[in-house]
């Protein structure tokens, strides 16, 4: 690799936000015909660094060379002119336009716009790399993975040969991820430079040729992927040795806590989201829920939490003395008033679980503001709780008065999970609790969930990473198209078996 000229050389790149140094004298080389994995924990400055390359931020100091020539990248247009294109984690598409319209949006080409020619060119790009996009399809009709494909084609259409993808697999199913990886390999083989930002170790190992690690805004090192391993990379990212094992203690005295029977849920459009779902969640046990995204996981949790109108069935909460209470048809307030301590960590952290513009104390207050008689708020209790969460979970925040939206993803999640477990729940529902979190933060969350399990909480854990589900759960409920495909033992089940059940009811055996 030493004799190749780097497509991009970044030298001494520095960028500060207020008092925080997001990037501190970072060096990075990107080569053509190579997939580089940019690895680092949340807040280590990966996205900031790449945003400077794609013209979103402007560095405070340092130099950028493209093909050996120093350049100034002041806007995304400058970046495009240099052939640099970035695919962001949050898609920037106009929903009501078609794929092709989105792709040419913002291009200032001379002459009349010829949509037929655009569509032809889009098809050509798709054929070259093996994309599956219909240029005439409206974006609102597309799945997440299709939208991502449109973003990638958009960048290629503009002639980019240096592609940056920010956590591209965070929203994809395993199958979609495989497809994306195949495309990225095609691009590499055709001589493009590809950078993926990620913190998923197995993706790095599977896909990348070279890996560069950032830690707290500094460049730690880079090496060929084949010369390293997950443990070494993790240690570099975190800065000290971490164990990559999730503990799974035997459940102690498991008793039925939540019994769901024949639950059927329809969406507003009348589509069946859950179809005759029955299962039992036990105290002191983690019940994993697996399934392809959109198979009713969200509706299941929200139905239990009293947020989802249901059509049929029952959800019983079983007290320690065996008495039952019906949760179906109750709203969250009445469930609370019944004395059922149910905590819910929803998928949409800042849109549902927390209020982004409020500080930690204000967010703790969401659960506690009704405390006390009289019309006035008790601020001392949530303040103590915020302090407790900050200390106990090691939340990295400038202060308790900082709005939570300013915190990094991992810290936002710690605030949310911290608040939910602080109320000593008997049932804990979590949806994609570690999505977008780095290794360190993910393991903190697993430990916290395990601690709740040890306290006798019935945990229902909806996850997307099968490896983790198989390591963490005592039992796994597999959903397929809103139906229960089966419930398997977490200790004996295999990834293959669960994967089959996710795509076919009963894994194809009973079908």
């Amino acid at each position, binding site marked *: 690799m030493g004799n190749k000229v780097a497509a991009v050389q970044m030298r001494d790149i520095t960028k500060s*936000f207020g008092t925080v140094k997001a990037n501190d004298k970072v060096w990075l080389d990107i080569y053509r015909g190579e997939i580089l994995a940019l690895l680092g924990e949340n807040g280590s400055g990966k996205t900031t660094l790449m945003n400077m390359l794609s013209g979103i931020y402007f560095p405070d100091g340092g130099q950028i060379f493209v093909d050996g020539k120093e350049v100034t990248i002041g806007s995304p247009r400058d970046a495009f002119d240099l052939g640099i294109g970035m695919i962001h984690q949050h898609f920037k598409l106009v929903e009501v336009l078609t794929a092709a319209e989105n792709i040419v949006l913002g291009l200032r080409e001379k002459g009349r716009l010829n949509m037929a020619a655009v569509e032809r060119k889009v098809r050509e790009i798709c054929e070259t790399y093996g994309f599956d996009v219909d240029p005439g399809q409206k974006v609102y009709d597309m799945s997440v993975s299709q939208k991502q494909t449109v973003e990638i084609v958009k960048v290629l259409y503009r002639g980019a040969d240096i592609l940056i993808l920010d956590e591209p697999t965070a929203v994809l199913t395993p199958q979609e991820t495989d497809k994306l990886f195949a495309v990225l390999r095609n691009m590499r083989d055709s001589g493009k430079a590809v950078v993926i930002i990620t913190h998923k170790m197995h993706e790095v190992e599977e896909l990348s040729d070279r890996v560069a690690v950032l830690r707290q805004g500094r460049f730690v090192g880079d090496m060929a992927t084949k010369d390293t391993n997950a443990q070494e990379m993790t240690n570099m990212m975190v800065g000290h040795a971490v164990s990559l094992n999730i503990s799974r203690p035997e459940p102690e005295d498991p008793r039925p806590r939540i019994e769901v029977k024949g639950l059927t849920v329809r969406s507003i459009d009348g589509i069946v989201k859950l179809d005759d779902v029955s299962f039992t969640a036990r105290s002191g046990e983690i019940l994993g829920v697996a399934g392809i995204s959109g198979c009713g996981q969200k509706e299941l949790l929200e139905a239990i939490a*009293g947020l989802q109108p249901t059509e049929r069935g029952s959800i019983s909460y079983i007290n320690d003395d065996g008495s039952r209470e019906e949760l179906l048809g109750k709203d969250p307030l009445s469930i609370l008033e019944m004395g059922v301590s149910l905590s819910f960590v929803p998928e949409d952290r800042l849109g549902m679980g927390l*209020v982004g513009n409020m500080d930690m104390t204000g967010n703790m207050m969401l659960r506690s503001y009704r405390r006390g008689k009289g019309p006035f708020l008790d601020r001392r209790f949530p303040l103590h709780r915020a302090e407790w969460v900050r200390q106990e979970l090691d939340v990295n925040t400038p202060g308790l008065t900082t709005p939570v939206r300013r915190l990094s993803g991992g810290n936002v999640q710690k605030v949310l999970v911290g608040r939910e477990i602080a109320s000593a729940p008997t049932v804990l529902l979590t949806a994609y609790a570690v999505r977008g979190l780095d290794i360190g933060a993910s393991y903190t969350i697993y430990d916290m969930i395990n601690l709740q399990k040890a306290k006798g909480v019935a945990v229902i854990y909806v996850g997307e990473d099968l490896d983790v589900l198989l390591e963490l759960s005592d039992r796994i409920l597999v959903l397929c198209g809103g139906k229960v495909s089966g419930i398997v033992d977490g200790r004996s089940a295999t990834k293959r078996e669960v994967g089959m059940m996710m795509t076919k009811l009963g894994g194809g055996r009973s079908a």
Partner: protein
Amino acid sequence: MHNALFHISKRRELPWYSAWGIRGAAIVLALVVCAIVTALATGLNPLAVYGTMFQGAFGTTRRVWILLQNLAILLCISLAVTPAFKMRFWNIGAEGQVLIGGLATAACMILLGGKLPNGLLILIMLLAAVAAGAVWAMIPAIFKARWNTNETLFTLMMNYVATQLVAFFVIVWESPKGSGKIGIINQNTEAGWLPQLAGQKYLLNIVVVAVLTVAMYVYLNYTKHGYEISVVGESERTARYVGVKVGRVIIRTLCLSGAVCGIAGLLLVGGTDHTVTTSIADGRGFTAVMVSWLAKFNPIGMVFASFLIVFLGRGASEISTIYGLNHSFGDILTGIILFFIIGSEFFITYRLSFRKKEV
């Protein structure tokens, strides 16, 4: 490749003195620009014009009282719309809510005046004004909560209904007949006229609004209701998630919003005007929206914002009288000053960094 001259980035947090420094600088700049415009457009000495503006607002004791009275009413309506805005409910129906409150007050004065002891009459007027304003705001709120109708259009339309109702009753109660207006109600008996504090016509209004300001500040910042309003405003999904009954909060908050508008109507009709016309609110239901935003929904900030707007208005009308200028010239100056003040918020939120020459 071109070099951008500057780029814009969001500030993290600015200490309060820097923020106020920026605002102060904006006002100074605005005055400079106004001076240039004045000199160029009218040939008058800008300093003399400023002096006249100041005279118009503060020149005599009477003018100070009028300034304070106008300030009180504008502030009262601004306080009224604030809880709704904080909840992201775009209540632009304050105009109608004030009118209907005023109409209810006038109705009590006309129909019950002389038949009840004055204390009892005033109490009934208060209840009627509050109820009328509350109902007027609650109607769009119920539709919003139940069927998610667009509150902006709905509250706006309610203004026209209120105006027409007042116009109708002005004819019903007109006095003397044929004059097309109600005239001073109970001029001889002064029944239903709000009492004067310390012999000052406007003092009661000012005291009532001062109390309301503090109450609203406490309500929004220190009560459970105020917290629910913030949560619903930030995210309805979060509110539902923690078990807040969103529809109920919307209706309750608009009830309050309308009730305070009703009080403004009471103060106008019972306290100062002693009559009702279709123009008692005088566009202040809309100006209040600006005051509320300018102060970022902080009741204490609204005191300053309403002062600024009332001061500019009084000053502008004074210069148009003294110098025989078209009234629009005063509005031009007001516009320039507001432009700079609102524009300064941009520099408080964002930072412009100019690029240094790179070596």
